[in-house]
């Protein structure tokens, strides 16, 4: 499946709830990046494995995730 998860990085608070919710275990908090707020933003490490279930987006308290699919 072709899918695309977009994270509005500077609004992300690095809470990790999306990481907890992802059934494919393909999200993590960035180990290298810091955003404007000083948090490690969430990122998708294997977009090809994403099933576009939007679990990450539905649990995100800051509504920063957009999920699209082909």
């Amino acid at each position: 499946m072709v899918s695309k998860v977009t994270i509005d990085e500077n609004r992300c608070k690095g809470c990790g709830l999306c990481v907890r919710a992802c059934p494919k275990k393909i999200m993590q908090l960035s180990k290298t990046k810091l955003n404007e707020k000083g948090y490690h933003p969430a990122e998708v490490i294997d977009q090809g494995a994403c099933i576009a279930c939007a679990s990450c987006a539905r649990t995100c308290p800051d509504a920063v995730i957009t999920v699209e699919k082909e």
Partner: protein
Amino acid sequence: MTTVFKKTPVLTDTVMHYCPGCGHGIVHRLVAEVIEELGIQDRTIGFVPVGCAVFGYKYFAVDCVEAAHGRAPAAATGCKRVNPNNVVFTYQGDGDLASIGAAEIVHAAHRGEKITTIFINNAIYGMTGGQMAPTTLVGQKTTTSPYGRDPEHCGKPLRVAEMIATIEGAAYVERVSVDSVPNIIKAKAAIKKAFQCQLDGKGFALVEVLSSCPTNWGKSPAEAMDWIKSDMIPYYPLGVKKDRTNE
């Protein structure tokens, strides 16, 4: 590409001030999505509380009123009665609704006000730094119960949904949780039903949402969600407590 999920326009673009992983943000989004789906944005008025959700008026893209502590149901009553075509909701924490505002919520339900209440039970006074709430669990440590809530001294936690369900004027009451994605989906369905109850003129509706306060619970956001499941849900059972929407 088709969009599977994106932020609802009924949430403004203002960055919410909540702590990372706070359940309030999830519930705000669910309320906003329901308002969008029901097509009622232009006639909805929100009454926001004193508590961490005090700035709710900056986040909901609808008209809002900042009510005095616990008095949102009283203020909402006036608003709804003056113009019944408005869709009126209150958004209240457990300190706000179950302590200082206990009389207002009971009598709004008692009068069968045609308003919708979203009640955030996070078992604590979040905004003021983590004091014990009526909903704090037995044994739970807070700044005012440093050895854990003692039921001999403070009683046992108040089950608001069950209490409100006993009131004749309450048409729809459900308890939900935001600890997991399936529960978040169920929470949204309950919130939608509670707004529909008002649109259909059935009477008072309340949805109690078990929500996290990682900061004052001293837990990570993920641990806090796990604690809702392991400790809160056993004492606060989820489900519909009253449904008269078909009568």
